[in-house]
């Protein structure tokens, strides 16, 4: 049974040391995957002859492209979203298509996933790749992140799990409750929800020697935070791993700003970085491709013929919630299962085109659904890990299907033919 190399894009870790055994064209066994990875490969490994459906009816590729072009061509303000689970090559094709039809495009994965990245646009970011965190970081704080659950191989890869962690390195967890990650840590600091901003601002005040508001300080676990701040100040290399919980309560954007501002303050005395955790396998790639093609990492409108970015206004969830879009093209994202209820309801009311290797709920409800080969399973491509490092996606399995990139390019070509350009 041949062992083939693979890269898992089941989360933002982009583990490129996976081996899969293939028998009779199917995945027989995988080595190196975590539970998320197992599910990720399994969901994408099925390869049925089905290529596309229009209104529930099985059709050939050309007819589905035709129907997609018709929907998008008629739309006043189409939305292109998803993107975080496909490869950079397809993301590139998605931006090109969005531009051609004057759409709004937004990588709409888990809503909280991009908040730290958005905040970093305002003040910047001190960050590092996995190898640096693994080999240099002596103090690591997981801030409302639970990587043991969300990115199971992250701690072992950074040698931060209990078994792999050297004695001189410290892992601290700040969260509202004892998580699985807290069980791996040297120290757990309990911080109530809704108090992230206050805690981070207090730490900034401690770094800068500014007196604290006494009432505010009384709500915080002040002593542990003071100790933590002091440890950062004297460490050689410190790191913060902000997780989705940071932006889930209060004003998430402001919380993210506070965290990045704290890291910036700390970086004046010690070498301190932050690595925002990402859930989707290529969420970082979606931001990167959008940024290089348009200048903006998210929430871009091409309605006026050039890119304009308005986080909030042009975010996929926001546009759907407000019922502002009249057609949607969704790439590799089970939108109905993950969007806020109101946005999902509105999505059901408009014609949708779904490009996805998986038979999702969103694909089942779509006017046009393309069943594609999966990047990383049946198709090669590139993904950017959460730390920005590009890794190649392999194709351990063969497939008859076309890739997301091909579908997007074909729809664009069909629309261009219509326009006669």
């Amino acid at each position, binding site marked *: 049974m041949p062992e083939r*190399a693979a890269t898992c894009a089941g989360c933002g870790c982009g583990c*490129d*040391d996976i081996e899969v055994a293939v028998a009779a064209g199917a995945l027989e066994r995988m080595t190196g995957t975590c539970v998320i990875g197992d599910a990720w490969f399994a969901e994408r490994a099925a390869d049925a002859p089905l290529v596309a459906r229009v209104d529930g009816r099985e059709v050939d590729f050309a007819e589905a492209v035709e129907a997609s072009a018709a929907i998008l061509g008629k739309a006043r303000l189409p939305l292109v979203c998803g993107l975080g689970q496909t490869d*950079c*090559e397809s993301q*590139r094709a998605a931006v*090109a298509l969005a*531009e*051609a039809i004057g759409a709004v495009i937004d990588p709409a994965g888990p809503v909280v996933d991009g908040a730290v*990245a958005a905040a*970093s*646009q*305002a*003040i*910047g*970011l*001190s*960050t*590092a*790749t*996995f*190898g*640096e965190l*693994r*080999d*240099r970081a002596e103090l690591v704080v997981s801030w409302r992140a639970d990587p043991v659950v969300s990115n199971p191989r992250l701690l072992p*890869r950074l040698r931060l799990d209990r078994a792999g962690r050297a004695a001189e390195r410290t892992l601290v967890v700040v969260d509202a409750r004892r998580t699985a990650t807290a069980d791996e840590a040297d120290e757990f600091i309990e911080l109530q929800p809704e108090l992230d901003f206050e805690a981070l601002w207090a730490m900034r005040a401690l770094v800068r020697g500014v007196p604290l508001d006494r009432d505010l300080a009384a709500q915080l676990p002040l002593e542990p935070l003071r100790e933590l701040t002091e440890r950062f100040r004297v460490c*050689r*290399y410190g790191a913060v791993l902000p997780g989705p919980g940071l932006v889930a309560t209060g004003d998430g954007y402001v919380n993210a700003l506070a965290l990045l501002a704290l890291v*910036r303050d700390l*970086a*004046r005395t*010690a*070498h301190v*970085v932050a690595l925002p955790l990402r859930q989707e396998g290529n969420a970082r790639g979606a*931001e*990167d*491709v959008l*940024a*290089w*093609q*348009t*200048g*903006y*990492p998210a929430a871009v409108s*091409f309605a006026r*013929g*050039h*890119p*304009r*970015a308005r986080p909030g206004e042009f975010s996929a969830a926001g546009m759907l919630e407000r019922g502002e879009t009249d057609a949607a093209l969704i790439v590799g994202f089970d939108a109905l299962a993950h969007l806020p209820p109101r946005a999902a309801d509105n999505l059901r009311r408009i014609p949708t085109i779904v490009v996805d290797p998986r038979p999702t709920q969103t694909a089942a409800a779509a006017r046009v659904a393309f069943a594609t080969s999966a990047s990383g399973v049946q198709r*090669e491509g*590139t993904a*950017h890990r959460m730390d*920005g*490092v*590009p*890794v*190649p996606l392999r194709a351990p399995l063969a497939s008859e299907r076309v890739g997301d990139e091909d579908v997007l390019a074909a729809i664009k070509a069909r629309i261009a033919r219509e326009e006669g*350009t």
Partner: protein
Amino acid sequence: MLRIAQGRVYDPANGIDGEVRDVCLDGGKVVEELPSHGPRIDARGMVVMPGGVDIHSHIAGPAVNAARKLAPEEHRADVLDRTAITRSGTGGTVPSTFATGYRYALLGYTTVVDAATPPLAARHTLAELRDTPIVDAAFLVLMGNNLPMFKLIRDGGSDGAGSVTEAVAWWLEATGGYGVKLVNPGGVEMWKHGNRNVTSLDDEVEGLGVTPRRVLEAIAGSVDELGLPHPVHVHCNNLGVAGNWRTTLDTLDALQGRRAHLAHLQFHAYGGTPGKRPRSRAPELAEHLDAHPEHSADVGQVMFGPATTMTADAPVSALLRELTGGKWVNADLEAETGCGIVPFAYRERNYVHALQWAIGLELFLLGRDPWRVVLSTDHPNGGSFLSYPRLIRLLMDREFRNEQIGRVNQKAIRRTVLRDDLEREYTLGEIAIITRAGPARLLGLADKGHLGVGADADVTVYGEHEDREQMFATPRYVIKGGRVIVEDGELREAPAGELLRVAADHDEAIERTLRPLFEEHYSVQLANYPVREPWLLEPARRVPARPDGSGR
């Protein structure tokens, strides 16, 4: 097939200096002659030069892209609409990829070198270059703070000993790179050891058994041994620090007798003492360069107005952060490099900024050999590439220059020789040298930067204009690979450019040496590190290394 008829031709590589003649193009190349009745451009009264070649710019890759994300305000203010032949985009000091390609082409540039790619991120740079139309592009691979390389240098002696040379060639092949870049060798690694740096060539990189000098000597030796078309491209230690001219001279001394190109020399030409006000040491550096034909530099001119500083020299960015108090990015890249980004603005009234501006001009005006002191703004560090026309006017138009000198901080000007006897005005022939012929020669691109038979059919035609800024800002025609890309200042088509990459042989056995070093330092598999994806690497042109030195 195209004849550019009766223009005034400046082709310094072939000794042609303003002669009225025809340039014939066919099959993407310059040819001797064409039938007289074919398509032609009437270039009477116009100036004809080879397409521009930028030897040092930052246009693609993770650092550039991180800078784009920082600049929504700039992008909002400067947009490009989609047209029938072009993609949309945004501009500012760090334009989107499509905008970068179009704007370089509209400026008459047809070849651009990205000066700093971390090898681990080569796929990212290549993907961006694929979306940077028209221009042929190459990139230089960062090797000056590479931990596996440090180990090989420490174990192998200081003179490009075997394994270092093999590793340099391996890294170029693995990434699709063109040449080798050293940025603050040793210093960026020290930045990751608790925000420190090196301050001289002989500081030890803590715990690693190498010094900047050993890194410089070993890598420069390897580059020479391989016969790479472009010499080692060095961003010296102590960038921006008062008194750093001594480090720059030390570096040149260490590299004496070996080919070397110094990046953005202006940022390394400061007298004075660290922490105090700098002064100019441009005359001393210009003199040294004159005396050493094996050495060259691009100037890294500062232009007043907005800029974005982006550098692998992360400790420098931390200093700039303290100056601006504004946005700051730091990105540590495992085993290879760092990265720092700070949006910046150069102001006429600021002593240091005015001094930097003046030192750049001194380097241009004092250098006796324009083939070895070529034009750059270290885009976007000293200013956007869009400011090249203004810089050309500063060099060509003494009256304009003196008027500008009168506007800026006079204390700074008094620390330079600009007021003394620098009456020099660049000729069109000299401009052709510092913007195309010189960079092409320093890069070892035999088919670029000239209009001799067999050269690439990359040609720029300018309307004669007394205002040289206007003349160079809006070429009448730009021809790339024989196709008319720009006509009357408008894009007519926007084909893809080629990747220019080096072809240098290496012994496959080096992977056995590298494997344990990879496993120690990287978080990706060695098997996944070399770029093999054809869609990222093609179309490409391989420029061969010449180990016997026959290319030089």
